[in-house]
């Protein structure tokens, strides 16, 4: 199957802090912390007193970005142990948020996709979210056959963590699932799958 030229890869426009916002809510993962720091450098620190920051270090724990975030002096900062725990808190906070609150997501694509889904459930149009990709380009991929999700996929093909089929990672992304699509690569002649190539380090 040919994958060149496929169009639906998400475009991340950058965090671009909106100074009209009444309140800023940041959900950041791993290297996504640096996207916020870059915003402070770009537009100054004034917005921080109206900002809530949720952070999860994930694969970046060694870089201690949480310490750097704490130094920013935002109105609130909360460091979550895991991504699901962060998403739970984001969900509750959005349920209490008002129009005029801007939502900023940064980190790996898999994280952005999941956080975006939480926001969409609160009636937020994904186009009104501020998003910036940072960190690993590893993908979160859904097996189209068994629907199992595999996180941190760096190769194509890869082996589905749920059903074991060798899957080609298509550049076809579902914002609802926050995942790329994996399709069995050797369906027509089982056993002929090529060797995995490291494509998304």
């Amino acid at each position, binding site marked *: 199957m040919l994958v060149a*030229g496929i169009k639906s890869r998400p475009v991340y426009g950058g965090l671009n802090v909106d100074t009209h916002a009444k309140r800023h809510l940041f959900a950041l993962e791993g290297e996504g912390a640096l996207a916020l720091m870059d915003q402070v450098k770009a537009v100054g620190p004034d917005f921080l007193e109206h900002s809530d920051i949720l952070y999860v270090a994930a694969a970046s724990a060694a870089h201690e970005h949480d310490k750097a975030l704490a130094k920013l002096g935002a109105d609130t900062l909360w460091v979550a142990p895991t991504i699901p725990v962060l998403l739970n808190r984001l969900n509750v906070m959005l349920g209490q948020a008002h129009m005029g609150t801007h939502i900023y997501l940064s980190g790996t694509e898999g994280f952005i996709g999941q956080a975006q889904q939480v926001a969409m459930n609160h009636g937020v149009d994904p186009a009104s979210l501020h998003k910036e990709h940072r960190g690993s380009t590893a993908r979160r991929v859904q097996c*189209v056959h068994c629907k199992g999700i595999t996180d941190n996929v760096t190769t194509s093909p890869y082996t589905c963590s749920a059903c074991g089929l060798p899957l080609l990672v298509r550049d076809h992304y579902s914002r609802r699932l926050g995942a790329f699509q994996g399709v069995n690569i050797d*369906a*027509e002649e089982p056993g002929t799958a090529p060797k995995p190539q490291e494509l998304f380090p």
Partner: protein
Amino acid sequence: MNIKFKTESFRNDYTFKNSAEAIRRFPFPFNEDKYMYSVNMEPHVPAGPPGHAYNKPIDVDEHYVAEMHDRAMVLKEDPLRYQALPHMMAAQWDTLELLMEAQAAGYPEHFTLERNGGQWRWINRPMGIDQTFTFGDASTLPMEPLEFITRQAQGDFVIVDQRDGQLWCDAGMVTTQADWSLDFDIGMNFHEWHGPVPLAHEIGVFDRALKFLLNLQQGKPVRRLNWTMTINPRLDTSPENYHKWGPDRATVTPENVGNKVHLRCELQSLWRLPRSNAILFVIRCYLIKMEELVTVPKWARRFHRVLRDLPPELVDYKGLTRYRPATVGWLSRFDDGQPTSPGIYPE
């Protein structure tokens, strides 16, 4: 006109066949001897010789009962083939009304719709359904309105919501698809949803189609034909089951082309819905075996030429690579090089 509904299968023993009349009414998708993408939309008005698939706005044919049976089996295995995002309820009712009215008006001997204010009664004789319900009250139907009616209408159905100058694929019943997943694509916009289609983006087909559809008017549905090929008469060529039907592609030999290789045509019609301002996208699939196709000499000549000269990207995207040579070879026996007449109908 009483349709004689056939008992046949689209899986396992594959007993699907077209009658001689069904062959003549097939919506052959090529109006010339070559093929490339285009925004080939035309008003969806009754057209074609008597009996043709274009005669009625919602077409019901001899495969109706068997196709609905196949859909029920697909849904039993995989309920995710039917999905609707929560904001699409008004569009669901719009679709139910459209399909019930069109089927009852087109085939009164098989379907009846009685409307008494908000109290409706729907009778589907071929399927033995007699349902009374309150229009607008989903609790008076055994399932959501879109699922209820699309279990009783041939073709796949997608409802696109219109917002911010884009169309969003936000609901659908998809069990007879040419290799795309509703579960994956639901929520995507028009460009994203068609993302994997090669070449067409570059020549602006989707930009033009989107612009056209955004201004689609109530009362003025449009249609277009699309096509691919399928090995064995399998309706459910979903990506979900690709590992099950994909191996079939390697089973084509010069001897079995006539019975195994099928041209798969999609008659797509698009309707602006009244209450929701959404657009209903009907993707009706018709299958025809090569040995059935060549009984119409014009189609045999033309399809041979189209398939022989198809751009390589399309051969790849449509998944024809493995069996195209055998099929072109087989079809060449029916192409004497004579010119073909314009248009899609048999001579």
